[in-house]
């Protein structure tokens, strides 16, 4: 199995989820993260003092899929999350050695 992690702009999460769902991905996990990258940060002002904040709000999503679905998933994410502006994010692919569904104890691709 492959684990695909994607860091995307927060307002793209819904679209990505819907696209993956259509591909037959039955589950995924998402959470809010702070991203540092080429997209520059911003300045905040409190009581006359300026503070530079380098991190941008992003959403990270993780999905484990069977090997043969990996490319389709990757492409779907790229397609949905792209705005063409800097800071659109990344997709990373990792190997996943095992999976278990807690409820049933099913293992491997069955567990997804």
């Amino acid at each position: 199995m492959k684990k695909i992690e994607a860091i995307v702009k927060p307002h793209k999460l819904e679209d990505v989820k819907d696209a993956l769902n259509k591909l037959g991905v039955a589950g995924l996990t998402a959470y809010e993260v702070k991203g540092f990258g080429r997209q520059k940060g911003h300045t905040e002002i409190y009581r006359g003092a300026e503070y530079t904040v380098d991190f941008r709000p992003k959403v990270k999503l993780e999905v484990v899929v069977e090997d043969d679905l990996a490319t389709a998933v990757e492409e779907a994410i790229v397609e949905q999350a792209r705005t063409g502006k800097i800071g659109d994010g990344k997709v990373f692919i990792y190997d996943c050695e095992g999976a278990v569904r807690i409820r049933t104890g099913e293992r491997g691709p069955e567990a997804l």
Partner: protein
Amino acid sequence: MGQIDYGDTAFILMSSALVLFMVPGLALFYGGLVRSKNVLSTIMHSFFAMGIISVVWALVGYTIAFGSTDWALGSFMGSFEHIGLAGTLGEMEGTIPLPVFIAFQGMFAVITAALISGAFAERMKFSAYAIFITVWSIVVYAPMAHMVWGGGFLAERGALDFAGGTVVHIASAAAALAGAIVLGKRKGYGTTAFTPHNLPMTVLGAGMLWFGWFGFNAGSALAADELAGTAFLATHLAAAAGMLGWLAAEWIKRGKPTTLGAASGAVAGLVGITPAAGFVTPMSGILIGLAAGVLCFLGLSLKERFRFDDALDVVGIHGVGGTVGAILTGVLASTLIYADLAEVLADVGRGGLILEQAIGVVVTIVFSFVASFIILKLIDLVIGLRVDEEAEETGCDLTEHAESGYVL
């Protein structure tokens, strides 16, 4: 010139403080309803009104609203004799010192301007907002107050508006409607979920509004007398019944009574009772509240039907509620509370009174809507009303104010 009564004065001073306190209440009521990236810009809309409108009121608003009717435009606006509060020291308004009346009325000017901002949430430039409410308060609010309370033509015709159903709620809702139309919809409207980010904040705001509204309505008696007492009780019961009406409608239509529904319904009831508080019996407050609660709930669908993005439902609550209240004031006004009513009824009958109320509503809507529309279009032409797309996505807190609401 009246003799000062310290009890009345104490009451109006405290009522003024209560009305002022409604503004941070409104800030939170609205602030909790937007997404967290816009919480400060939304709060700022109300809070800033406390600054600019108060000063504008002292400089010109008061004299336009309550200056003498005795000049060419006297039916529409007061004369400029009290510009910069000139000639107001040492004067009385009934049994209270004039400066107390000025303060009390100034708070109404502030909250009315702030109410509009619910339609502007999450996409308006702060600079445009600042200019808009300043101009609006001078050009729309102060003349409206004059027409209804300051001896202008609606007062002359006999429209009843105890504490501001038309002047405050309908006028602000009409401006909000113009704003929603001119600004256009928020990015993602219809596809993205615009859900409240902090409902406890909204409920706190509603609690502050309910509390402050006692100053608003009972204080409008301008004395700590029985009229203030019945207005107080009617106000309270209308808020309570507004909550129940909304919750019942919601429970039936959606299957659940919500906390936001309770808060919204209470505000709807308070809006509904505002024009009526000093003309109806306390028990009529329950009827008005119920009607406002149910009808405002139903009124929410207006924005879907007519497809304008009134982000925080100013039209649905203040427009519908204000109209319901104005009409029901005509229907339920009672000689038990308002002795002079006998004369009016003898004169034009109940039907005539209701008609007069309807005229008041229509005049207010037309005047405020048209004027607001023009002001907004002009500002849009000159400096633009709306933040750019990227700013809208990032959130107005950062782009307009360089601040973040929370770092929890």
